C-alpha cells in the first residue's frame, strides 16, 4: 500500500528519529511510504490556544497536501485527533461547507500509527526487540479522542525482551496540554511530578507513548531531575532490534479492504 506519512511539525524539527522509525516500520511491512514535503503543521496548537483563523488556514493547507492520498499515517495521536475530530468543529464554526466536506472525506483516512498497524493492517508483531522495562503512558488525545489504547499495548506485548509494566494512574494527564505547559507551568509540572513518581513506582526504565509532545514534557522533567527514566516513542521501540522484514498475512500484495476507523466515534 502507498502510505503518506504526516510526520507532524514537532517531530520534523525535534524528533526526526520518530519519523525515521515510522518509515522503517511501515517499509518493513512492505508498504511504500511517501513524504509529501509540502506538509507543515495541522494547526493543533493554534486551534487549542484559541487562534481559530490561523488554525483554519493550516487545516486548509493540510487538506490540500493530503487529499490525494488514500492512507495518511502519523506518529502523533494528538495531531491525528485534531484532523479526525477537531477540524469538523473548526470548519463548521467557520461556515466553510466546501472545506467541511473535503475534510470529512479526509478524516476517515488519517490514522495514528498504532491504530493503522493494528486496526487497519492487522499486524501486532513487527519483529522488534527491546530488552527493557517499559511503562506505556496513554496520552489523553490517544486515549480519549481516538480510543487508542489496546493497539499500542498489543504491539508492545509482541516486542521481544520487552517487559511491560503497569503504570499506576495511567489515565491521568501528564500535564503537558500544549500551551498550558507554559501558561500554567506550575500546575503542569505538578502533574508531571506525579506522573514521574508513578513511573518510578512502576519500576520502568522507559516511558513509551504515541505523542512526542507529552514525552518531551515528561522526559524534559525526568532529565532535569536526573530521574533515571527516559522516554521513547512507540515507533522507535517498534523499529528497534534486528527485526527482519515482517509481513502481515495478506497485506504484502493484495490491496487491503476499505480503510475504516475501528475506534468508536467520539461521544
Amino acid at each position: 500500500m502507498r502510505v503518506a506519512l504526516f510526520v507532524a511539525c514537532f517531530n520534523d524539527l525535534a524528533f526526526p528519529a520518530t519519523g525515521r522509525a515510522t518509515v522503517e516500520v511501515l517499509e518493513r511491512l512492505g508498504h511504500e511510504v511517501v513524504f509529501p514535503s509540502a506538509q507543515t503543521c495541522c494547526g493543533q496548537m493554534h486551534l487549542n490556544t484559541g487562534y481559530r483563523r490561523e488554525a483554519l488556514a493550516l487545516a486548509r493547507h493540510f487538506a490540500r497536501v493530503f487529499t490525494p492520498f488514500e492512507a495518511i499515517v502519523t506518529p502523533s495521536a494528538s495531531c491525528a485527533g485534531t484532523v479526525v475530530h477537531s477540524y469538523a468543529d473548526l470548519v463548521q464554526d467557520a461556515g466553510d461547507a466546501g472545506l467541511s466536506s473535503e475534510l470529512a472525506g479526509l478524516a476517515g483516512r488519517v490514522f495514528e500509527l498504532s491504530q493503522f498497524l493494528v486496526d487497519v493492517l492487522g499486524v501486532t508483531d513487527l519483529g522488534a526487540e527491546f530488552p527493557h522495562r517499559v511503562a506505556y503512558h496513554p496520552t489523553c488525545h490517544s486515549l480519549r479522542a481516538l480510543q487508542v489504547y489496546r493497539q499500542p499495548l498489543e504491539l508492545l506485548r509482541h516486542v521481544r525482551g520487552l517487559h511491560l509494566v503497569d503504570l499506576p494512574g495511567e489515565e491521568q494527564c501528564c500535564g503537558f496540554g500544549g500551551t498550558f505547559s507554559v501558561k500554567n507551568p506550575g500546575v503542569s509540572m505538578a502533574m508531571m511530578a506525579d506522573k514521574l513518581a508513578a513511573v518510578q513506582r512502576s519500576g520502568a526504565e522507559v516511558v513509551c507513548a504515541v505523542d512526542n509532545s507529552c514525552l518531551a514534557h515528561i522526559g524534559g522533567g525526568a532529565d532535569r531531575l536526573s530521574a533515571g527514566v527516559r522516554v521513547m516513542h512507540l515507533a522507535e521501540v517498534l523499529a528497534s532490534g534486528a527485526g527482519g522484514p515482517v509481513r502481515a498475512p495478506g497485506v504484502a500484495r493484495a490491496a487491503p479492504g476499505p480503510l475504516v476507523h475501528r475506534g468508536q466515534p467520539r461521544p
Partner: protein
Amino acid sequence: MSPTGAPGVPGPRGDGFRQAPAFPEAASRALRDTQLRANLRRATGTIRDKRDRVMAELGDLEQLRDAAAAIKDESLSRLGELLSQVEERVGAAGGRVHYAATSAEARAIVVDLVSRTGSTDVVKVKSMTTAEIELNEALAAAGVEVVETDLAELIVQLGDDLPSHIVVPALHRNRAEVREIFVRRMGERGLAAPAGLGDDPAELAAAARAHLRRRFLDAKVAISGANFVVAESGSVVVVESEGNGRMCLTLPHTLISVAGIDKVVPRFRDLEVFLQLLARSATGERMSPYTSVWTGATPGNGPSEFHLVLVDNGRTRALADPIGRQALRCIRCAACLNVCPVYERVGGRAYGSVYPGPIGAVLTPQLDGVASGRVEATLPFASTLCGACAEVCPVRIDIPRLLVHLRGRAVDEHRGAHPEPVAMVAAAYTMSSPRRFGRAVKLGGLVGKVLGRGRALAGLPGPAGRWASGRDLPQVGAQSFRDWWASERGGRSGTAPLPVAEPLQRGRGAGGPDGARTASGAVQLRQALAWLRPTMQQRAPGVARQVVLEGRDGVMGAISSALVSAPFVPVEVPRHYTHDAGAVAGELLALFVERVAEYRATARVVGGGDVGAAVAEALERTGSRRVIVPSDLPEAWLPPRATATAPAAVQRPPNGGVVFEVVVDDPGLGATELDGFDAAVSGCAVAIAATGTVVLDSGPAQGRRALSLVPDHLVLVVRQDQLVGGVPEAVARLVPTAAQTWVSGPSATSDIELQRVEGVHGPRVLDVLVLVGSGPGH
C-alpha cells in the same frame, strides 16, 4: 435604604471571589499549600472510586446520559414557555414566582421578601445560585443574620473562608482545622462547641447538630436553591444529605427558593433520569439521603408562604451562543471537578469563581462575559484539554470543546500588539507555506544546537523561560526529518501532488501567492505583514449585549431573542434506558433489603401479623420511648399492647418492661414539641429496590413531612406491593404535586474528610420494615 439595589458586579464571582487573582497566579499559590494538596488528592480519589463503583451498576448509563442531555436541551429550547408554565402552576398552588434579570435584581427581591416577614434570622440550605448572586452579603447588609446550615457551608461560613468544591465546599479543611474553627467561632454565633470537643467527624457533626437545632426549630424564614424545577407541575426539587435541607424546606413559615432559569425541566417524569444520575455523579451514592419535592405553598405540611425567584444573571447571554450554551445543561454534580487533574492540584478557590473546576472554566466566562475580567479571560485556559471531564459528565457537556471555543473568544477579544498573538500569527504564517516552514525547521535546528537542553533559559520571562523552569528541552539535532528524507529518499519523494504555487486563503484574503520562488524579500515582508495586520488591528466584534429590561419582561425578552438568534434543532428525547427493572418479587425484596442496609439503616422483612412486634423491637433497640405516629397509621403497626392516643397517654405493658408513649400527631404540635419525641412510625407511597429508597408523599399512613424529619429515629413500613425495581417505576406511581420526601438511609454527611457519618440533622437512625404476605398488617 437597602444597599442591595446598588449595581454590583453581575455574575458568578460572588462572595469573596471579587478580588480573586487570575487563574495562573492563584494556582501557583495554591500549589504551595501542602495541606490543600493532600486533602484534594485524597478527596478526589475517594469520590472518583465511589462514583466508578456505582456507575458500573447502571447497565443503561449511556442511555440515561443521552436522555439527560436531550431533556436539558429541550428545556432550553422551550425555556420561555416552560417558565410561564412554572409561574402558572406555582401560582395556582399558592406560591409566587419572581423574575430577576441580574444578580442585583435577585438580591433586591430576596431582601425585600425577607424584610416583609419581619424576621431578621434566616436559615439557609447550600445553594450555588445564591452564592453566585452574593445573597448572603446583601442580607447581612440589610441587617439579616443568615445561617448556612449545610455542614460544609457552616465550616466555610464560621471560618470566614471560601468554598473550594461545588458538592463538598470544605474539602480543603481537615478535621483538626474544622475542630479549631468550631471551638473558636460557634460561641459567637449561638450555641458554643461542647467543652472537650474532639476531632472525630462524628463528634464534629454532632456539634453542628446541636449548634443548629434551636435555629431550625425556631426559624420563620428559610432560603434554598433548587436542583430542578418541573414545569408541568410547578414542583421544586432539592437533593441533600444531612436533613438540614428538609429542616429549612418544611419547618419555617416562609420559604424563598432561588433558582437559575436553567434549572427547569419540562415533565415530572424527567426526574426519573436526573435522580438516577445526580447522586451517583456527585457523591458516588445511589441516591442522596433526602430528595424533597413540593409544589407551591404547603400550609399544614410545610411553609405557608412560598416564593420562587428565577434568576437569569447571564444565562440568556450563554443561551445565545449555540456552542457555549451546552454548559447550561449542567446539574452541578461536580463529577468534572473530581476527575480533573488541574482541579486536583489547585482546588476550587484558585478558579476565582463560585463555579470552580472544568464546569466553572466554561460557565463563569459565559455568565460574566469572557472579556469581563482577567479571571474570566484566563479560566478557559485552565485546562490541559485532557478530556476526563467529558467522559464523566452526566449531561454530556463537551467541556473540552467549550474550552477551545471560549479560548477562541478570549483570543479574539484580546488580539492586538501583544507578544502571544503576534507569535501565534507569525507561526501560522510560517507554517502555511512549505518553503517558509522548511527554512524555519532549519533555523530551529540551529537554535536548538545553541540552546542545548535550555537550562540557561530558566528564569527568563516568556514561554521559553516558563518551559525551562522545570523541564529540559528535547535534544534537537542538526538534521530534521525532512532533511533526512531529502538526503535518503530524495528521488522518490511524494511531493508531486501539491500544486506548489497555489495561494493559501487567509480568512480575509490578505495573502498573496506565497509559494512563488520569485518573491523578493520585500514581497515576502509585505505578505508577512498582511498576515499580521488583522491581528494587530482587528478585534472580533463583541457579542451583542442584550438590552435587559427589568424582571419578567427582561428575562423573557432575553430568552426569546437568544432563541431567535440561535434556534435549537428540535430533537425527540431518547428514552432507551431501563423502564422496568423487571426482577421477580423475591429478588426485588432481597435487593431492596441489601441496598437499604448499605446506607447503614436496618432493614427487615416481616410477616403481616408481626409488624407491631417488629416496630416494638426497632424502638427498643434504640431505647426510643416517646413515639409519634400519623393519625391514619394502621393499628396493627403499633407496638403490641400500645394504642395511639392523644398526647400524654402512657401505655404500660402488663408484664412491666418496655414503656412506649405513642402519640397521634396533631397539627397543633410545633417543631419544638415534635423534637420532644424519640421516634416516628410511618408508612410510605412507594419504595425502590435499586436504590434502597423509600418515598413518602404525605399520603395514607404518613402524615405531614415534619413527622419523618424531626424525631431522631424513623421507622418506615413498606408493603411489598409498594416495592418497585427502579426509579422510573416509582416516578410513574407518584403524583407530581404531592409533597414528597425520598428517604435513602439515615441523614448523613461526608463533609469532613469525606468520612461518612450517619446522622446529622435528620433522623440518625432509620429502620425499614418490609411487610410481606397477608395478615392484619395489610
